[in-house]
């Protein structure tokens, strides 16, 4: 439906030079997102992967307008996102959030019906409320919907709760769903069902989605494209099949290598702790942990790695000195 209006080539949601900084304790500044360009095409599922603390959640929230960028802009349908109440409200009928922890994402005092209808009520859509709620629930896989209307979240299983959250997003007929680790807190056995649901929604409704995850397997399962983040930047960006089977950035490579039955051979375990957004190293942000620098395979560009900043990745590609100058 919506696809007809928007030309396929034009991104639905995008951002340019996006930066978000936080004031961290001790007077420091955390550069949670620090220069990101990203495009989400209609009907596409984009995975956002990376270690803990690399800024995935912040980026997702900023795309949703929940966080105001300190630099750069978010574009929706080619227009910059406004932050006035009215603009945001309008935007929020189109872009919806699905959170990691479905238990926390539902008010324990609200019934499923209330939780799903809340979006309608906020936007003043009182017409056919019951039908719309029922429809959203059944689209989210909770059938028969009426059976769940009066249930409280704590009476449902984790998978069902996540479906309720998704139904709450679907009820407003959005075009984009941004899901932050949508299955991370779910039991292994029900994970697949939820992912399948997301895929089906894309296929049936043409929904686009950004799925934040640290699990590359998940990206492999459902995503079309993947953006790998490191310390507030996207270091590699491209089709899932491409990036995950033939990772080009040493970081992506390490991430893929530690998977069981990994397609890239020997596991390369990065030493050290996840990076700290308040202390961003100069040069290539990854250089202190870079295995390529360590094993000498990047000796040629070692200097650049330590000193020269990499440009912000604007399109599918990789941000690495090693790849920038093919040896």
């Amino acid at each position, binding site marked *: 439906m919506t696809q007809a209006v928007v030309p396929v080539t034009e991104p639905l949601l995008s951002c340019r030079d996006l930066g978000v900084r936080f004031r961290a304790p001790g007077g420091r500044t955390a550069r949670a997102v620090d220069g990101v360009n990203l495009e989400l095409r209609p009907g596409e599922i984009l995975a956002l992967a990376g270690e803990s603390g690399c800024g995935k959640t912040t980026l997702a929230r900023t795309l949703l307008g929940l966080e105001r960028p300190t630099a750069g802009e978010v574009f929706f349908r080619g227009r910059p996102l406004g932050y006035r109440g009215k603009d945001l409200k309008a935007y929020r009928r189109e872009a919806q959030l699905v959170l990691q922890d479905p238990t926390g994402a539902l008010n324990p005092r609200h019934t499923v019906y209330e939780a799903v209808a809340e979006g309608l009520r906020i936007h003043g859509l009182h017409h056919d409320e019951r039908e719309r709620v029922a429809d959203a629930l059944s689209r989210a896989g909770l059938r028969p919907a009426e059976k769940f209307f009066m249930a409280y979240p704590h009476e449902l299983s984790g998978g069902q709760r996540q479906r309720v959250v998704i139904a709450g997003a679907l009820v407003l007929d959005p075009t984009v769903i941004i899901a932050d680790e949508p299955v991370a807190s779910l039991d292994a056995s029900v994970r697949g069902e939820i992912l399948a649901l997301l895929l089906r929604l894309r296929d049936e409704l043409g929904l686009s989605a950004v799925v934040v995850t640290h699990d590359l397997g998940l990206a492999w399962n459902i995503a079309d494209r993947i953006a790998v983040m490191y310390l507030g930047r996207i270091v590699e960006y491209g089709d899932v099949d491409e990036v995950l089977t033939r990772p080009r950035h040493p970081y992506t490579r390490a991430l893929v290598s530690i998977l069981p039955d990994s397609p890239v051979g020997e596991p390369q375990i990065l030493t050290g702790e996840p990076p700290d957004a308040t202390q*961003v190293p100069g040069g290539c942000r990854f250089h*202190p942990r870079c295995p390529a620098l360590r094993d000498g395979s990047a000796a040629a560009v070692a200097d650049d790695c330590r000193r020269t900043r990499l440009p912000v990745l604007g399109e599918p590609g990789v941000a690495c000195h090693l790849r920038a100058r093919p040896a």
Partner: protein
Amino acid sequence: MADISRTGVAEPSAAPGGTPQSDPAQAAVLRRAYRGEFLRFVAVKFSGALVSLVMVVLTSFFIFRVLAGDPVDAVVGDTPATPEQVAAIRERLGLDEPMGVQFWEYLRSLFTMDWGTSYVSDKKVTTLLWERLPATVLLTATAMILAAAFGTWVGARSGWRRGSTGEKVQVGVSLTLWSTPTFWLGMIAIVAFSVKLGWFPVNGMHSTRGVGDGFWDEFFDVAHHLVLPALTMAAVLYAQYVLIMRTSILEERGNDYLTVARAKGLRDDHVRRLHAVPNALLPTITLAAAEFGTIFNGSVLTETVFSWPGLGLTFYQAIKIPDIPLLQLLFVFFAGTTVLVNFLAEIFYRFLDPRVRRSA
């Protein structure tokens, strides 16, 4: 394009966040960082305490000078005074000045530590404070030590053995004590133990007839007088400590490290004593400090019932008159002490508890 120009911007050089383990120098770095944070914490808390103190001082002026009016009657005594006398008194007390001047005088008095003279005597109120302070310290400290020692002990045990009959009894006793009006408890204690049984003196701090002149004579005399008021005052505090400690232990009890300790083969009471209690004591300090003000509440009532010649009694006496400069000083003293104790407790707590040493 825009990107390229930005790449040239110099960035802060790499902090050692990337590879932390292998660098021993980092211990020093971290320690310095923590110390800096600690100092900042102290500074923040200190400024907070300072603001509180200023508020205490202002409140004191507001309540006693602005709200409360003219205390001349209090000064003149049983026999009526002539208008000339009244005027003279007003002038002597500075009550004829406009409020602004009085405030200025008040502020000046703060810095010179000259709080004026009592309305009923010509003594400096600060002198009165110092005279009465030791008795209060003796009473409150005894009560507090008793209550804290027994209270935390019992609280720790009852929290540890939650659901046991012993715990239920302890909590019941504590709640009952907490709900008992202190003054009433004191009244009953006097009737029962002093008047009826004759075990303890009725009230006061010294025997009415005087005792021997030796140190120990006096010591035992005072100690004998101290028993009932200290126990009365300790009752509420005890209840507080039991409940606070019990809650802390309960919060602590759910933590896995206690299971780990048990799994390591520690016996139950070692787990409690070595792990649970020390950890639970830490939050207890803050909670107890927050309740510190109640000690003064209790001391006013207890000292009044037992005619214990401390600050609480002085406060009560000053109310009856009302002796404004004295009330003012006592109010600032009580509130100020409480603010200070809380400040110190916060610092102390942070110093003691590694969990909060780093705010991040």
